[in-house]
């Protein structure tokens, strides 16, 4: 160890001014003090919340229109999901769409927020919301069923509008 330390080469030809370090200290302090007067951009989470833009991919949700999910349980989201997070079981309904998801479950531990499910959906029924607060204490809590996934269409309108223009 001692050998290594002694091996550090120090520049020998420093001038007096350089050896005093005062100009360097002044330079540093100037930057520090100038930063004190610029506006801050830190968000005081959780007192303040970040409002993501429409292009943000938060947790996937199911769009509920007129009290019914748009989803017809075609299973494409489940098939395309690279993390195998989605499980769909179809059932028959008397509505014109014939088919509805009897069970729709997303394992949020598996979900990687890639948005493939949204992209593949033929009904625009599953979309990425702006919700990002997803923390669980138990793995079972991360299984989101229809109760948690269904969101009225008004709440996700910004994302739907974004998809109209950007897809």
């Amino acid at each position: 160890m001692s050998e290594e330390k002694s091996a550090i080469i120090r520049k020998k030809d420093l001038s007096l001014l350089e050896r005093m370090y005062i100009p360097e200290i002044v330079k540093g302090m100037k930057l520090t003090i100038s930063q004190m007067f610029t506006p801050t951009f830190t968000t005081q989470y959780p007192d303040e919340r970040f409002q993501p833009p429409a292009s943000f991919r938060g947790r996937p949700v199911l769009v509920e229109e007129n009290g019914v999910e748009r989803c017809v349980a075609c299973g494409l989201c489940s098939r395309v999901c690279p993390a195998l997070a989605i499980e769909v079981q179809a059932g028959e309904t008397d509505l014109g769409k014939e088919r509805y998801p009897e069970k729709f479950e997303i394992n949020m531990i598996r979900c990687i927020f890639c948005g493939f499910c949204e992209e593949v959906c033929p009904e625009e029924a599953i979309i990425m919301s702006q919700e990002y607060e997803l923390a669980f204490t138990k793995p079972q809590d991360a299984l989101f069923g229809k109760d948690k996934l269904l969101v009225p269409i008004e709440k996700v309108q910004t994302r739907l509008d974004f998809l109209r223009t950007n897809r």
Partner: protein
Amino acid sequence: MPTVKITIDGTQIEADSKRTIIEAAREHGIKIPHFCWHPKLSVSGNCRMCLVEIEKMPKLAIACSTQVADGMVVHTKNDRVVHARNAVMEFLLINHPLDCPICDEAGECKLQDYTYKYSTGYSRFDEDKVHKPKRIQIGPHVMFDAERCILCSRCVRFCDEIAGVHQLQFIQRGDHTELTTFPGEKLDNPYSMNVVDICPVGALTNADFRFKARVWEMSFTDTICQGCARGCNIELGVRNNEILRLTPRRNDDVNSSWMCDHGRLDTFKFVNAENRIKAPMVRKDGMLVEVGWDEAISRVASELKSFKKSEVAALGSPFATNEDNYVFQRFVKEVLGTKNVDFARHIVEGSEDTILLRSDKTPNSAGAAEVGIVPGDGGMSFDAIIEGIRDGKIKALYALEDDLAAIPGLAEVLPKLEFFVVHATNENSTTRYADVVFAAAAYAEKNGTMVNFQHRVQRIRPAVTTLELDRAMDGFEMSRWDKFASHNDKWGKGPRRDARSSWKIVAGVAAAMGTKFKFNTADEVFNEIVQRVESFKGLSYLKVGKKGTPLKTKTTVNVHA
């Protein structure tokens, strides 16, 4: 058989002169797209999808009804043909609804596949599509959607030519043409569900399987139908360790491309039924209690030892595999030392027809007899055993999986037994009288062979896992979900039961009684059958293969075919 030489897409092939172009091409691995043509049905030629160019013919011709001729030069992929195909696809898709997300056929739909392969990929049609009735129960087991129908007439021809009942026909003209049943009739023939398989689109779908699963979520295992002695070749569609549907597999020697509705609907639901025997059970204080395998086996071993050889009888099973029955008859002859061994026949006279159905309602009665479930010299036959129980001569009975008490007259006889041990997959009228019930693996949970009424050996393969089997380790067919599920995914698993193949249970009892059979797997048992039973000589699981093979000699067994 005169052969002709024709050239398809530059390759010269030799074909029987009676063949059509589509058949000749198919025999040589060249696929010509088609909707209405089916190898087992008459040629209709209405879909126009198989248009090909034949040199020196002015117009394109349909490959399905043009007979081959010497020196014929056929093009199936040139610009003219591709252009014509695109046009045909465009016409078919004009009135076809965009139902794929809700359609059960999606994933195995000819129209969907061909749209990807042979269509331009966009629609020029701005007008409204023609609307027709949807969601019609056209028969007890078949749902019909008129909009999806592309009017290929396969189902009409199936009913006329194969099922032999004229139940379906087209009405109206032009784009209003619609499939319907004759007035007052339903599509209710015993083979009605085959129209679901041959329908190239989702117009006719399986009412029982409706919306249960998407096709790509299931694994498919080649096995044999258990409905009767025909032994139709089938595929089991399994998802989450649950059988969801059966579909026929083509085997021209056994079932052509078809299977009956009874086999398709009634022979798989018991595997995942609520009343499955989940673990071995022993009667304690009048109640059947679930116990461990060791306890149940040692109980049976000690009880069976306490009877005289002449007081014990054994019944094999025409529902069990050859392997099960073979080990069982060895156990009976070598360990129990009794000659009273036979099996119950389940013949329903008059239930057969000229298509597939047999009067023998069991899949393996020929095999059971073949491997030695026959009374020994001076031993009792089935009727004699039942009489013996009634008279009190037979005091203990060991039976493989078979609902004996459901046979008329036996429910009164079985309670007279002092000791009754039975293998069972489900709780049934027989398990109520049993002292020990062994949890037997169902046909979809084990390897084995069965012999049909033609004396043809065919393989069954496991598709559903029990506790002792593992989908990945034991060579099961795997769906994508099966492959990638981890231990903390609740899906991809489904319920598993502590059931074992009957031969394994019998070998366990034999070991507890002092005789060790050295079998580890079903094919080891089969290899011994091959060595000891003359008619199986030279066979192996590999040789039996996916389509089975006829037995070498027909032994003189009274098979009620």
